[in-house]
Structures are given as structure tokens and as C-alpha cells.
């Protein structure tokens, strides 16, 4: 039992933080109607490529760094703290899907190119109703000429418009399977959505007889494993984003003066910030525990990340709203960053299952144990 981060982890986190604090500039997003492109979505990626981040979770055998989940949390937390725009989420998602679902040939063909920064990925899992679990799908695969053709749509796909290769969940033979799809073919149409969280690129995709290649593993073998890791990214981003909001709001409360003293001298403000801090401590320890459990693949890993995701997202949502309240009216304007965090928090909470959905999963797991 030792809850302290190792020196290696602290160094990894520090270097990620130093880099992102220097490189990430959200100010272009503080003009109305600006989207991820203005926030240097593409340029940021080039910098991440130079650091080798596309290959963070690619095993060393395929030319990556082979980080485990706990290592990765050191980096994605910092991405969340800075709201760094860039297609890392999509590439992580696609990599995990191929790692778990792909054949050896598919891994050999794709993963080294991902690790080298030459291939960005996206995972198309969600349907129009937002669901990502279960065997239904708005996309259907039909066998054709030794391969498959996809028909239908996928929704809310992160980083799809810039991706070089899509991993798509589609129904085939009454089951959900995963397919590799080249987005630059005539049968694929990608629309970037006017997504409220302008630090992330989110798209809808339509398939018209799009050519596709089947991934080896079936849905049940691959998806829960991939999903738990994506939930970890969202939870880690949220817990770290909360820390950033806490720090800036505390600083504001120390400096902003009303009725002759800093507003942070009033208990009404102090107590809100103390609540935010306490919830932040809870979110942090929940995320670290889940990261450790996923790294070690312990039996309670799935429950642990369901708990961390639901807790951290709820806490982040509450903190970003409180932050706007404490800043006062200025915090409600487009020119301040408060709303960027507010919107990221809302989006993270909804992605891959809302907090209540994961709480229901936790109770279902407990009921199963009791039965």
C-alpha cells in the first residue's frame, strides 16, 4: 500500500505540464464563433508529434512508448487542465480499439504509423441517441467482394474530420463489430458539429456503401476494455480541469475587492471554494485508484472507473458553475475562459454515458455480487 506517485510519474507530469502551459493558448477561442481550428488544433498536434505523444500507449514492439494507464493519466490530466485542443483523444481511442480488436497483421500495418505521428485515428462508437453500449447501431455492415460495405451513420465522433483512419462500430449479423474505414473515400461524409465545447472537434459521419475492413475481435471482447480506458481519459481530464478552475477562482477571490476587502475574505465565498477543494480531493483519489486498477487489470477495475467517471464529471460540472458564480457577471462573458471549462465539463459528463448511467452500472454490479 503506497498511494504516493513515483518520481517517474512526477517527472512525466511536470514535463507535460510545463510543455502545455507554454504551448497552449486558448485566447483565440475567446472571440465569438471561433472553433477548434482557431485554437491551433492542427498546429498543436504537430508539437505533440514532436514529443512522441501519438505513440504513448502504442506498445514498444510497434514503435510506441508502451505507457500503462497510470502513466497516461499524468499526461491526459494535463491536457484536461489546459483544455488543449488537438486530436489526441481520437487517436488514443482508435489505438485502444485496434490494440484490443485488431489482428496481428492489422496492428503491424497501423500502429507503427500512429506511433510515428503519421496517422491520426478516430473511434466512431456513438449513435444518434448518444448510446455507445449494446448491440444496436445506426450503421450496418454487409459483406461484399471479400470485404464489407458500411451503410448508415455514426454520431458524436471525436476528432473524425482530421482522422486518417476511422474505427467504426457497425451491426453485422445481429452483433456489433468493429471495422476499419478510410475516411477519404467517396462513400464517407463527415460533418463537423457546432459542438458547444469548442476545445474539442466532434463530428457526425454518414456511410454510403463505404468500403470497410473487419477487426478480428468481437464487440464484447473489445468494447468494455476500450470503454473503460476512454472513461479514464474523461475522468482524468475532468479531475484535473477542476483543479485548474479551483486555482483560477481562488486567485480571483484573493484579488477581487468588494466593500473594502477581497471577496475571498467572506465566508460565503470561502465555503464554496472549500467545497470545491474537498470534491477535488475526492475526484483525484478516485481517478488515481481507477488508473491503478486499470493498469493492473484488477477485478474491480471496471467498477472503479465507473465510480471515478461519474464522481469526477459531476464534481467538474459543479465546480465550473460555481466558478462563474464567484467571478460574478464577468465570468458569464465570452471573453473569459470560465465558459470553456463549463462547456468541457458538460461535454465530458455526457460522453460515453452520463454520471447517472455509470451509477446504475455500479449498482448493477453490486446486485450481481449479492445474487
Amino acid at each position, binding site marked *: 500500500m503506497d498511494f504516493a506517485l513515483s518520481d517517474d510519474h512526477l517527472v512525466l507530469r511536470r514535463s507535460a505540464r510545463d510543455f502545455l502551459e507554454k504551448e497552449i493558448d486558448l485566447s483565440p477561442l475567446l472571440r465569438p464563433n471561433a472553433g477548434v481550428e482557431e485554437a491551433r488544433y492542427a498546429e498543436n498536434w504537430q508539437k505533440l508529434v514532436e514529443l512522441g505523444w501519438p505513440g504513448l500507449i502504442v506498445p514498444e514492439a510497434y514503435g510506441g512508448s508502451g505507457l500503462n494507464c497510470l502513466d497516461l493519466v499524468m499526461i491526459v490530466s494535463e491536457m484536461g487542465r489546459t483544455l488543449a485542443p488537438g486530436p489526441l483523444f481520437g487517436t488514443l481511442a482508435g489505438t485502444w480499439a485496434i490494440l484490443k480488436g485488431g489482428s496481428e497483421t492489422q496492428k503491424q500495418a497501423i500502429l507503427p504509423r500512429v506511433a510515428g505521428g503519421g496517422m491520426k485515428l478516430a473511434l466512431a462508437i456513438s449513435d444518434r441517441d448518444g448510446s455507445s453500449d449494446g448491440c444496436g447501431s445506426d450503421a450496418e455492415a454487409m459483406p461484399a467482394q471479400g470485404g464489407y460495405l458500411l451503410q448508415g451513420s455514426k454520431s458524436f465522433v471525436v476528432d473524425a474530420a482530421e482522422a486518417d483512419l476511422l474505427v467504426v462500430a457497425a451491426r453485422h449479423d445481429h452483433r456489433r463489430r468493429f471495422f476499419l474505414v478510410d475516411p477519404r473515400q467517396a462513400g464517407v461524409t463527415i460533418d463537423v458539429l457546432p459542438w458547444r465545447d469548442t476545445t474539442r472537434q466532434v463530428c457526425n459521419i454518414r456511410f454510403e456503401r463505404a468500403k470497410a475492413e473487419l477487426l478480428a475481435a468481437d464487440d464484447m471482447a473489445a468494447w468494455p476494455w476500450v470503454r473503460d480506458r476512454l472513461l479514464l481519459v474523461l475522468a482524468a481530464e475532468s479531475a484535473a480541469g477542476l483543479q485548474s478552475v479551483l486555482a483560477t477562482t481562488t486567485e480571483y477571490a484573493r484579488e477581487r475587492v468588494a466593500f473594502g476587502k477581497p471577496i475571498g*475574505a467572506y465566508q460565503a465565498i470561502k465555503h464554496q471554494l*472549500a*467545497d470545491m477543494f474537498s470534491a477535488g480531493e475526492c475526484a483525484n483519489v478516485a481517478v488515481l485508484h481507477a488508473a491503478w486498477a486499470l493498469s493492473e487489470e484488477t477485478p474491480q477495475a471496471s467498477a472503479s472507473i465507473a465510480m471515478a467517471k461519474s464522481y469526477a464529471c459531476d464534481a467538474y460540472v459543479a465546480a465550473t458553475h460555481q466558478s462563474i458564480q464567484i467571478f460574478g457577471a464577468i465570468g458569464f462573458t465570452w471573453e473569459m475562459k470560465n465558459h470553456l471549462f463549463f462547456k468541457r465539463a458538460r461535454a465530458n459528463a455526457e460522453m460515453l454515458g452520463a454520471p447517472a448511467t455509470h*451509477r446504475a452500472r455500479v449498482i448493477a454490479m453490486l446486485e450481481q455480487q449479492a445474487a
Partner: protein
Amino acid sequence: MNFDLPPDDDPRRLEVRAWFAAHPKPKYRAMAEAGYVVPHWPRPWGLAADAELQLIVDEEIKRAGVLAPNLVNPVAINNCAQSLLTHGTKAQQGRFLLPALAAEEIWCMLFSEPSGGSDLGALRTTARKEGDHYIVRGHKIWTSLAHKSKIGVLVARTDPHAPKHAGLSQFLIDMDSPGITVRPIIDMSGEENEYNEVFLDEVKVPADRLLGKEGEGWALSMSQLQTERVALSKPGAIWGAGPSARELVQGLIATGATKDPLVRDEAAKLYIEGEILRLLAYRSFSDRMNAKGAGPEAAARKVIAAPHGQRVVDLAKRCQGMAGLVRGTEALPQPNNGRGTYDNWDYAFWFSPAVTLGVGTQEILKNVIAERVLGLPREKDPTAKTPWSELQKPQLKAAS
């Protein structure tokens, strides 16, 4: 980083388990002599145990079905007796420690007064030196266990001309001394009384009962309030004791109450929060192993844990419906077979408003976090630097 707890076949665990196998239903004195009451203390009282061994001992006491001695004599074992190691004389250590650890002499804390609970430094009880005695006069309130106690840890004002915090001293007094009257406070639960008022009328206290030096009373009191042992094995609803969220959810699943979607979501929230509180408790132990002091999460943990506990017993009570209003009707099976004071859902619920008041009110703890952790401006106490006796003058009272 490693969240694994000491395994079931850990040799240290097997040794503790063997001791309890050889001593079924042990007397607390035997446990105290074996070092199992305060394993984290130095020998001969404890085992100089690191955090993992402490955790093992806690778990094995529970496994053996023994009611932990710190639940019987909490003030001595959790809070105050440790001060004798650093500030007590050899004679005081010899006289008081073993009977305290063996729970043969119950202790109480004579701290709070009617003039204010959170502002302890403003207390009015005085101890006046007369020869080889002190004469104590005053009035204490909210004293847990006073009616069962042999020993009282008293904070009193020995120097009325010093500023309020500087003039305080601590004494170990006999609760059966002439001049002490204990009057029970019937709290809103209406059950066996937890709290008392204690009247001290010209009580003679031998000078050798002074703990540490005169003027050290404030520092001693603060350290005693902060050294409460982390209730590790069971993050119960009532200050770490009593029913926990795990027991709540197990019980609600067994009764089928979780089929109701609203109950289901609330139960899940509480379960998750309970698991996180467990992790925070383990983390503070882990921090101590890494020789880090009690981190800021200690205050944060209490701020989350107290209302969490209230919601745990509240949901159990609500799931009873009308039947829950009938005195003594249990919501769910009692934890620990009902042996501890709070191992009782009905009592724990009607008692639960106390947990955001006692051991630091929610408001004071949030101030502590805001000021000492987040660095927000400190609340100034305009009376902190003034000699206490000046503050008692009528014209100043009227002006303040």
C-alpha cells in the same frame, strides 16, 4: 503507486491473528500489554507500528469479533493519552496510561463551555494556584462520557492577565473529586445520554495533575483535537463509527429497495462517495508511511464525510416509510451485531445532526480549508492579543 492493502497471508497479519486465536475474548488489559490498543505508539505501550501494521491490527481486532477499545475509551485512546508521552511526567505515565489503554478508567474532555464551543480560547473556567493545589471554578458543557468517566482532561485559565490563548493550562482531574457535579444533557435522540454539563465548584486539584507547563493548555488541546486516529477499517456514518454506505447498499439490495429508480441513484451516489472516503482514509495512512504529515485532505475528508454519513442514515430511514417513525424500529440489519454505540440505524439517524457539529463544525472546517489550504484571507479575532482580564471589564463588554 500501489493501492494493494496488506494481503491475507502477510506474516505480520498472521502473527496478530495467532495472538487473537490464543486469546479468545481478550481482556482489554491483555490487549494493552500486547501493544494492540495503540500499535502506533512506541514500546512498551505500542508496537512502534507503521501504518500498514496499524491497519492490520485494526482489521484483525474486527475479524476476531472484539469491540475495539478505542470505541469504549475514545477520549483517552484517540485524543488525549498520547500527550502524556510528550508532556507527562514519569509518575503521570505510570499512574494513568495503562488503566486508560485497558479502558479501566474512562476519560472525558472538559473543553467546551456555554460561552462558546468553536471559540475554545474564550473559555472562562479558572484554575488558581494555592500552595500545592489548584482551585478550579467553572462550567463545562457537551462533555461526552463525563457520567462514566474516572478522569477528566480539563482546560482552564491559569493566567487571566495573558491573552486568551496564552493563559490556558491542562490538568488530569479525578471526576469524583468533591465540588464536581455532572448533569446529563438529553440530546434530541432521546436515547442514552451522550453529553453532559459539568459544574466545577471550588474543586481542589493537586499540583502534580498539571499536564506539561502552565500556559501550554492551548497547544496541547489543539494537538489532541487533531490526533484522532483515522477510523480506517470502517468509514461509518457517525464520525467513522456505525453503519457505512456499503452496509446501506447491501441492505437496500437485500430488501429490494434499490428497484426504485430514485433510491437506486441515491444509493449509488452514497456508495461511490463511501468508497472514495475509504480511499482518502487509506491515503492519509499511506502519507504517514511516507513520513508526510496529515495532509489537507484530513479536513476535506471530514467536510465530505460528515454530511455523507447523515445522508447514509437518512436514506435508510426514508426507505422505512411510516414505520421509521416508530421508536426503535430498525431500517436494516445492524452492523457489528449492534455492539458499538452507533451500530444501530434508528439511533444513528436521530443522532446524526450532531456529526456536522461535533469535532469541528462544518463551517469552521470550511474556514480552515479556505484559509490554511487555499490561502484566503484569515478571519481576524479582535480579542486574540488583548489580556483576557481586560476583555472581562464591563465597559469593554459594552463596547464590543
